[in-house]
């Protein structure tokens, strides 16, 4: 049931030639295979912008139709997958706007860990060192994968500004390389790392709060 995730490096320009030819010839098997491989990722991106699963599926369908309509104009400056994922991001963002959901760009300021956790700058011995140290999570790996923990993570992802959410979904959840993610989202590598770091930090913070609460009971 669980197929392995398509990871970044396995998809290259080389695979694209055959694939594009197949699509242009109307090869249904080529199309359904690529829909199978990429739609999960596309759906996740769409879900991160719109309220309902039904609408997210429509966004993915619209994106595929856009891909087919524009295939002859695809200039091959990126891999086909990068181009397709860029299209789904655009479709999802514009759908979010029509649903009046605001595409939130995060303010890239503020510390990723609450400053109250650290000693003050004028501390005689340990300026800006931990005051409230992180305590080890005594959670076996299996515990991290149960439904309840997953919902903590999903809620934390949902609460992110959408630009951070896009990056963390593509990089950490789907396992794409940074170069491809920068191309999909049209952002610089530095910006991508800032967004990724803020997103990861917030998810870690949410897990920390959750484990602290469950250990306290």
């Amino acid at each position, binding site marked *: 049931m669980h*197929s392995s995730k398509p990871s970044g490096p396995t998809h290259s320009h080389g695979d694209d030639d055959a694939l594009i030819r197949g699509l242009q010839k109307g090869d249904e098997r080529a199309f359904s295979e690529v829909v199978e491989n990429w739609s999960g990722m596309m759906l*996740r991106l769409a879900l991160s912008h719109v309220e309902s699963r039904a609408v997210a599926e429509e966004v993915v369908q619209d994106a595929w139709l856009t891909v087919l309509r524009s295939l002859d104009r695809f200039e091959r400056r990126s891999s086909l997958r990068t181009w397709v994922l860029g299209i789904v991001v655009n479709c999802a963002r514009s759908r979010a706007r029509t649903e009046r959901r605001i595409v939130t760009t995060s303010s890239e300021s503020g510390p990723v860990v609450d400053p109250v956790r650290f000693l003050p700058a004028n501390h005689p011995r340990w300026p800006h060192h931990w005051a409230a140290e992180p305590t080890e999570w005594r959670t076996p790996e299996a515990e991290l994968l149960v439904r309840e923990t997953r919902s903590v993570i999903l809620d934390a992802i949902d609460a992110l500004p959408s630009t951070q959410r896009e990056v963390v979904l593509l990089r950490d959840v789907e396992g794409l390389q940074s170069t491809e993610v920068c191309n999909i989202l049209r952002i610089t590598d530095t910006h991508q790392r800032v967004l990724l770091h803020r997103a990861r930090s917030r998810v870690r913070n949410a897990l920390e709060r959750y484990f602290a609460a469950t250990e306290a009971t």
Partner: protein
Amino acid sequence: MVTDLPELPCRELVELVTDYLEDRLSPIDRARFEAHLTECEACRTYLEQFRETIRVLGRLPEESLSPEAREALLTAFRGWSRL
């Protein structure tokens, strides 16, 4: 062995974790980062939790299109390829 590099406090280290993991720190900052870790158990714990977070993110269940949506796409593809 800690040389005379300016000390990196915990509060700054937590801002650099992704740059460290992505290998994007300058050699000097990397040395400061690693020197700090050897001395600071709390930051080692923090880094481990950060890695754990990334691992768990990578193991969320996959999403997939409903059979209806997939079927609709195939139908659309047939229509498109006959154009």
